[in-house]
């Protein structure tokens, strides 16, 4: 184990997989200079400018070329810079990458990873702050991953690069600097497996990506009050770990889903609806979601904060759920 940042863990994942498999390459804008956040730093020096390829500002072609290159014996890692810019390449991802294997009757595979950094990151405003993971979870053919820790960013990105189908890999911009323990040797984290980040008996929080951290903080604070919160970090949104979530809520009888994204039609709705469908008779309180209001993210801090789910909001929500309810 050693302390590594979330950013460095992602860089190491790409580096290790490129060393392991010469078919792996990365493409995107400014990768030669290390990428916009430094996630590719030094890799062009190490692997050359063919395998760490700088591209024109052509998101549609970055994504579309990756689809063609994935069909033709290589394993591209696509860098979209901000998930917001990936909106310039949706046909290529959703109509092409996601559907090709099926539409062409399984004649080939499209093994590509699309890195799409999400989330709020200091006054970045409406076009640089979105979290649209729910969109991709809705699209057949895509795997969706949203790591929350350095170790997971290493282990999940490596696994994603080895996956034979397209993966939308959503790192959170506000986590780049986060430090955490990361195993020394080969570290792979399976897709589709959640992590129980904290155990508890009174209520289950299901979350992913950056929200893991305020959830853990809230759980810590609540434990002082005698409330035992179990925190499940989904890590992969499709396929999400239904078994882990149902087992936990089956035990606690209470579910709170916490997401940074807009709550309306967010991925939390899928979790909440699935749990309500499966465990209605075991629930000791109604399922609940906590997410952003349906507003674009604003620039000025007091406005931006209105879109933020805080640990305070989480503790309040949990308290509201564990306090005995009168039947409405």
């Amino acid at each position, binding site marked *: 184990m050693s302390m590594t940042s979330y950013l460095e863990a992602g860089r190491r994942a790409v580096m290790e997989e490129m060393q392991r498999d010469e078919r792996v390459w990365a493409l995107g804008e400014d990768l030669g200079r290390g990428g916009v956040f430094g996630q590719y730093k030094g890799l062009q020096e190490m692997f050359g400018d063919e395998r760490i390829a700088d591209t024109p500002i052509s998101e549609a072609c970055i994504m579309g070329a990756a689809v*063609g290159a994935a*069909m033709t*014996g290589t394993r591209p890692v696509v860098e979209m810079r901000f998930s917001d810019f990936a909106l310039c390449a949706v046909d290529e991802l959703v109509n092409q990458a996601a559907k090709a*294997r099926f*539409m062409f009757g*399984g*004649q080939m595979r499209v093994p590509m990873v699309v890195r799409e950094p999400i989330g709020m990151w200091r006054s970045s405003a409406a076009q640089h702050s979105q979290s649209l993971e729910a969109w991709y979870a809705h699209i057949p053919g895509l795997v969706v991953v949203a790591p929350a820790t350095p170790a997971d960013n290493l282990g999940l990105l490596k696994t994603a690069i080895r996956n034979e189908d397209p993966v939308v890999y959503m790192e959170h911009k506000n986590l780049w600097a986060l430090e955490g323990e990361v195993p020394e040797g080969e570290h792979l984290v399976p897709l589709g497996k959640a992590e129980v980040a904290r155990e508890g008996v009174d209520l289950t929080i299901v979350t992913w990506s950056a929200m893991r951290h305020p959830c853990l903080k809230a759980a810590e604070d609540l434990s002082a009050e005698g409330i035992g919160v179990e925190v499940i970090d989904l890590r992969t949104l499709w396929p999400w770990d239904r078994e882990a979530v149902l087992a936990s809520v089956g035990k606690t009888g209470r579910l709170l889903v916490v997401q940074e994204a807009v709550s309306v039609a967010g991925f939390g709705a899928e979790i909440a609806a699935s749990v309500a469908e499966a465990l209605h008779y075991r629930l000791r309180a109604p399922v609940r979601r906590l997410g952003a209001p349906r507003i674009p993210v604003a620039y000025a801090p007091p406005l931006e904060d209105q879109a933020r789910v805080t640990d305070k909001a989480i503790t309040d929500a949990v308290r509201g759920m564990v306090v005995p309810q009168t039947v409405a």
Partner: protein
Amino acid sequence: MTQHTAEHAGASGNLETGRFLPILSLMWRIRAFEELAIEAQREGLVLGAIHPSIGQEAVAAGICPNLSKTDLLLSTHRGHGHTLAKGADPLAMMRELFGREGGTCGGKGGSMHIADFGVGMLGANGVVGANIPIATGAAHALKLRRAGEVVVCIFGDGAINRGPFLEGLNWARVFDLPVLFVCEDNGFSATTRTRSMTGGAGATARAESLGLPAAEVDGNDVLAVDAAARTAIAALRAGEGPRLMHCHTYRITGHTAVDPASYRPEAEVDQWRRRCPIARLEAGLRLAGVSDEELSRTRQEAWDEMRAISAEASATSWPDARGAFADVQDMGNPAERAF
């Protein structure tokens, strides 16, 4: 900009019959395949839309014989001819159009997504222009892999007004990729004359502005298409980077098989019927000494082959419904967890 018109061997009567008789056969096979597909649609055997390339066969037949099986091809919604010319099995293709078992895509794609990766045909595409970045990426992979193959990407005149045209051609130039872009210009974007929606001189001017050598070609003259393709593909194989060919042709049918195409004068269609690329090649071959008997045998064999295929396809069973859950994705496979 290079011009490829009638300045070739065909006009002077000494065309290589050994090369062009098989091309004639290919053109007839494409024609027969599509005529029979249209007939089958009328009979309710083809359920989705089909976009025939009748009248445009010289493009497919002029280009693809210059490719080897491992070279790659990407096509459009109007892709039957290209796919056949690349060497796909017509029975599997017809089964695909009929949505039957054993179709090239197992019945999942239909006409608009026809593909045969086994012969390097990486797919038709239902989104205009979407094949351009994909073809570019395929060429990028070939270059990374130091493979000697080349990629051909065929699209319509309408596609040059979509952004991916610029992004793909620019990309191919920047990375010096072995890809030949072919604008198969039939004058129409569905029901609209493309000229009225196109600023500037068109495909070659745009390609040249992006640094790609480009050629204007009479797309109804298979000899001209062949000559231009041969030149271009040789340049690709020599590592000279991407190129574009602009082939001028015309579709004799409507946009889809059911479109009456009332938006154009009958006289215009007639004029193009007289420029039929198959009849023109036949005339050339006749001049070069091929007998009428051989010509009609070529035609007959093509029709016989395709009639048999169509009958066999219609007698094939439907695919197993469970196939709808296969080939989606391995992780989170809906066959295990559909809802």
